[in-house]
Each structure stands twice: as structure tokens, then as C-alpha cells.
């Protein structure tokens, strides 16, 4: 039994079946790469898991708890963190303030008016800044960070949430080689202590981080296994050869 189970998920937009009977299990403390050609439904799956879209049918179960149809913030509170493809940080706040907002153990607005950060913030911040290497950028306005730094900031923000599962949508899009290398390091450290789903196109990157690879095609589950098994899979080859981009 996985930490996150998806059963027979379906979702259509204007009659087009975007997610079609998709099922999936996520094992604790693994890094699962979700791959598939454009339009396979990867981002929509993310949207459905995090509550941004509501499924037409099917169930999403987190640690035995049915979270289907809950609001985004409720799902986030139950322990699913998400990083967007286009990095979404609060550009006019400082890096430190971004982390403070992300430390969302207390979400009641009236309790938060009291001002102080809940206990545990400082050690968590130290851990996260150490991991992301942003310790000396804490005072900088987030809008002034480089692209790579912004991506790490957002990963850091998701970590501040201390989620049971992290969903990362194309975390290395637009990064330089050196930045990708650093991100690989971060993710490989993370997967020792966290459960992750990473949506990615870049197979070279997938090779360096993935424990398990899941392939989606036309909104359905196609194959799952180690990267080697996937690369040997005939159906996967067929799907990918049909598409020019890998």
C-alpha cells in the first residue's frame, strides 16, 4: 500500500477526456518521476491531486484518508506540497519572508495576528536554507533572484511546509548545466527523507534522480518501473517514437 493512491481518475474538458481511468500508487520515501509526451495529462494529474481541479470520478487517497474533492488549502494542510512549473514565489517579499509564509503550521488568520512565528521555525529555516544554499540571500527581495535561485527558493518553500509528499513540476526547466547539477544534488538528498513526484521531460535529469518512473499516455497509466525497465518497454518506445520530442 502506498502513501498516495489514485484510483480510476477521470477528467474531461468540454468533452475531451484528459485523464482517462488513471490509477497509480506512490511508495513512501521514493522519488517517482512522472513522464509522458505533451498532452499526456501530467500537469492535470498534479492539478487533480492538489485540488486545483476536481475529478469527474475516481478517488485520491492520502495515507488512507480520502482527499478527493477537497479545497487546495485543505489538501496542502494534509501534507501535499506543490512546486509550479513557472516558479511561483512572492517576488516583492524577501527570501526570508517567503520562507516565513511557507512555514504554514498555523493557518488560522486570527492566531497569526499575534505576530510570532510558531516554535520550530528557526531550525527548519536553517535546515532548508542549508539544503537550498540560500542562506546568504535571506534579505534579498525574491524578485531579484536569478532563475535558478528562484527555483530553489520555491523548492525550499515547499519544504518549509514539511509535506508528506512533494509534487515538483519541471524543477529544472530553464536552468543552466551548473544549476541542474546543484538541483540534482538537492533532490538526491531530499529523497532520503521525503516522498516526491517529479514531472519532467529531460530524460538525462530523470536518469540522475529517479527511483521509479511512471509513464502516462493520453491520460492513462502506461507503464511503471525502474528507468531501465521503462526504457526497455516496447509500448513506451512506440509512444515516444511517435512524438518527436523526448
Amino acid at each position, binding site marked *: 500500500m502506498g502513501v498516495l493512491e489514485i484510483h480510476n481518475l477521470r477528467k474531461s474538458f468540454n468533452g475531451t477526456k484528459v485523464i482517462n481511468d488513471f490509477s497509480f500508487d506512490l511508495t513512501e520515501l521514493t522519488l517517482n518521476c512522472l513522464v509522458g509526451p505533451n498532452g499526456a495529462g501530467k*500537469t492535470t494529474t498534479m492539478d487533480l491531486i492538489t485540488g*486545483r481541479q476536481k475529478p469527474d470520478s475516481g478517488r485520491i487517497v492520502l495515507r488512507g484518508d480520502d482527499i478527493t474533492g477537497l479545497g487546495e488549502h485543505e489538501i496542502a494542510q494534509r501534507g501535499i506540497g506543490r512546486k*509550479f*512549473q*513557472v516558479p511561483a514565489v512572492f517576488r516583492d517579499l524577501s527570501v526570508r519572508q517567503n520562507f516565513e509564509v511557507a512555514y504554514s503550521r498555523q493557518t488560522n488568520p486570527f492566531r497569526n495576528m499575534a505576530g510570532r512565528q510558531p516554535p520550530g521555525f528557526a531550525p527548519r529555516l536553517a535546515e532548508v536554507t542549508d539544503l537550498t544554499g540560500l542562506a546568504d540571500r535571506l534579505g534579498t527581495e525574491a524578485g531579484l533572484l536569478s532563475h535558478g535561485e528562484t527555483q530553489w527558493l520555491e523548492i525550499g518553500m515547499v519544504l518549509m511546509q514539511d509535506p508528506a509528499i512533494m509534487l515538483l*513540476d519541471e524543477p529544472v526547466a530553464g536552468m543552466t548545466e551548473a544549476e541542474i547539477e546543484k538541483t540534482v544534488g538537492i533532490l538526491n538528498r531530499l529523497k532520503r527523507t521525503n516522498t516526491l513526484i517529479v514531472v519532467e521531460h529531460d530524460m538525462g535529469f530523470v536518469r540522475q534522480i529517479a527511483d521509479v518512473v511512471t509513464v502516462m499516455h493520453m491520460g492513462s497509466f502506461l507503464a511503471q518501473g525502474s528507468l531501465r525497465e521503462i526504457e526497455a518497454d516496447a509500448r513506451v518506445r512506440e509512444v515516444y517514437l511517435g512524438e518527436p520530442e523526448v
Partner: protein
Amino acid sequence: MHLLDAVPLINALILGLSIASIWLIAALGLTIIYGTVGVINMAHGEFIMVGAYTSYALQSSIGLPFLLCLPASFAVVALVGLVIERGLIRYLYNRPLDTLLATWGVSLVLMQGVRLIFGSDPKYIAVPQIFQDNLAFGPFGLSVFRLVVIAITAAVVAATAWLFYRTRFGMQVRAVMQNKEMAASFGIDADRVYMITFAIGAGLAGLAGSLFGVLAIVLPTMGTAYVVQAFLVVVVGGGSLVGSVAAAGLTGELQSVFALFSNDTFARFLLYVLIVVFLRFRPRGLFAVAKARR
């Protein structure tokens, strides 16, 4: 139901059509500008007002016939719009709240500028005698000028639809609306498309103004009377042409029918509340699509 009882209601429906046409032509320019450029133009009412003053000035100085005042007002206000777009709006395209505020500043300047030039006493626009009559079919009737407004509105809507859906320019507009960068890579100059659209939208307001100057009165403050209704039409319609047509039809008829059964003031209150409730359930209006996030 006796036919006799239905007469007031049918008359109210006919009148509702006229009110709808007035609100629609008031909202048309706003729709185009909002739908294409994404700017909420708070100075729209003052564009209407400038259009009315243009007609008044042309008529009283060089005696231009009323029917020629219409295109003249269109041209003059389009020019005003062009200047404002080039001088101000184009710097604010990515800042929707700021365009709202900046155009409100523009409205103050236009209103006060007109007041300094023309004074604050009311002016009027004369129309040919045949426009000052009433057409009656038995118990049903409507004034000729209201019919003229309905006809002009229909013609202008048709022309706008043609321009935006049947011409090369319209294709460019829609390409820019969908994806500015992609359109640019096909050699479409988004900046130019925005500029022209804004000018056309302003010009339509000017045209509406010269019609309203005949229905009511030409005053520096006249624009505010129409602009709230125009906004509601655009917001309810969701910013598309067909949306505005539907929204104007709906709200105009409701206003007319509510007024028949209660009174004008209460009808207006009821309409505002209905619109707020409607927006609660369709915050993006009648015809709008959700956007994806990557």
C-alpha cells in the same frame, strides 16, 4: 390573460429592447477595449461625453447635419483615444489595477477640460424633424429616434463583428489575444493592434455620445450616467462581443419590466443586487473561459 392586460407588458418589452440598445452601444467600445486589450477604461463615460460635445460643437459652429455628426464624433474621439493610448495606456498593459486608476485620472481631466472650454451649462443637439415622432402599431409604440438608436446599434455591432471575425485585422487581434509572443513571431505587431483597437473602442464611445446627446442632454458630467451601466454589461457579459449583446439585452429588459411593476429607482436597485449575486456564481461573466496554469 386578456390581450389588454398584456399590452403594458409588451410595451415594456419593446422599451426594454430600446434600453438594451442604449446600454449596448454605451458598452460596445468598453467591451472591445476590455476584451482585446484587457484594460478597464474608467474614462469611457468621458469618451461618450466628448463625443456628445463634438457633435454639439460641429453642429453649432459649422452647422454640420446630425447624421454627419455621428461619423465625425467617431473620428474625433478615436483620435483622442489614440493619443491617450500612446501617451499613457501602453505603458500600463501589465498592470490592470493601475490602468483602471490612470484612466480614472484621465476622466477627471477630460471632464474638467470640457467644462473649462464649454462651461457647465447644458447644451443640446438638434435632430431632423422626422426623428421627433412616434411610431405606433395599434396600442404598441416606440419613438422614431429610439428606433434609430436600435438600428444604429445593430449596424455598429454587425460592423464590429465583421471587423473582428471576418477581416485580416480581426484575425490579428484574435491571435494577439490568444498569445502575444506567438503572434509576434508570425510578424503581427501587438502594439499596433492594441493601439488601433483602443482607438476604435474610443470612437464607438464617441458615436454613442452623439446619440445620447439627442436623447437627453449634453453636460460635462453626462458620461457618469451611462458608464456604470456600461461596466455592468461588460462584466456580466464577460468581455466578449456576444456576451455584451446578451448581457445588454437581459439587463435592459429586466430594468424595463421591473420598472413597470415597481418604479425606476427600485428597479435599478434590484438590478444591481441581481448582478452582484450573478457574479458570485459566474465571476467571469456569461461567456468566459478558465485559464490554465503551468
